[in-house]
């Protein structure tokens, strides 16, 4: 039996110390928070929106690329038509009139 007052004081102090250490450990929550109850619904909504926006961005980029390709193909054809018109030979016809000069191997 612990009848000594000094011994009793040491025992009380050790008990209090052990109690506060245990309290601090529990308050620190060292175990991982998990389970659906811990997820913030606003964060989940934000994540879903991000995925949706990313998907829409890919679709939009693909659509713009398709339209750009079509535009470029049409522009190339148009430029070819313009070049062909510019490269068109002059009006020419066979006549029986006398020639001013002649062409021959140069």
């Amino acid at each position: 039996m612990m009848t000594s007052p000094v011994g009793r004081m040491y025992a009380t102090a050790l008990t209090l110390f052990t109690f506060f250490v245990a309290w601090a450990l529990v308050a620190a929550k060292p175990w991982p928070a998990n389970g659906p109850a811990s997820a913030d619904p606003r964060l989940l909504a934000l994540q879903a929106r991000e995925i949706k926006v990313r998907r829409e961005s890919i679709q939009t980029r693909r659509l713009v690329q398709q339209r750009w390709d079509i535009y470029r193909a049409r522009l190339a054809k148009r430029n070819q038509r313009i070049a062909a018109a510019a490269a068109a030979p002059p009006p020419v016809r066979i006549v029986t009139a006398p020639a001013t000069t002649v062409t021959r191997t140069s």
Partner: protein
Amino acid sequence: MKRRVFKSMGTEIELITLAQDADAQLSDAEAEFHRLEGLLTRFDPASELSRLNANAALEAGPELREIVRLALEGRSNTGGRFDPTVHDAVAAAGYDRTFAELPDDGPAPSGGSPCGGGVRLSGRRIELDEGVRLDLGGIGKGYAAEHAATILSAAGPCLVNAGGDIALRGTWTIGVDEGLTLELTGGGLATSGRDRRTWRRGGKELHHLIDPATGEPAACDLLRASVVARDAIQAEIWAKALFLAGSHAAAAEADANRLPCVLVTRKGETRLAGGLA
């Protein structure tokens, strides 16, 4: 109508104008021919072209840059049948001095020279790949004819005939083949063939139209091809390209590209194509 004839670029040049008072323009047009010949001849080591060929690179003047650009464009448009890099091939075939200085015959050429080497234009600079030299004889007369026609047209409708490569301003009649006369309004007309500028080596007749694919004088069934185009430069380029294609392919290509042309085969048959009928 006024007419002036003189020699330049190894051929006879003919200037014709309907204007009566065109002496100044006629003189300016003639001077332009001589000036361009001085820049573009491969037979004068001091010409701008010879300096480019000797050094493989040159800060070139505007005319040389423009004509090289046009020649490269022609090479691209004709799938390489027109090619300004035939210098060594045409020299190897024996055409290594002015045509007037060529001997009647000589040793047979050892073989073709490769064509189609790299030519780069960057700003004022022209650069050639190693071993590449340019011969602008296939485009120079048409180019000079267009320059001269522009000068002469200040006086009125005119015609410039550079040894068969013709630039027109106004409506004119041109004889193409025996009995065939064309009436053209503006544009150009040129003829390329193996019926002139021929020489002999090793007893064999050679000519100046090099096939860039073989690096040798072209062996095809055509005697000559005359082509009408938007200007004398394009006419000269396409006359060579169609000549090298041979009669069947040339007629099909002329029809597809709407290039009026007269093709004369070595058998003497005349064929019209490109909408000419």
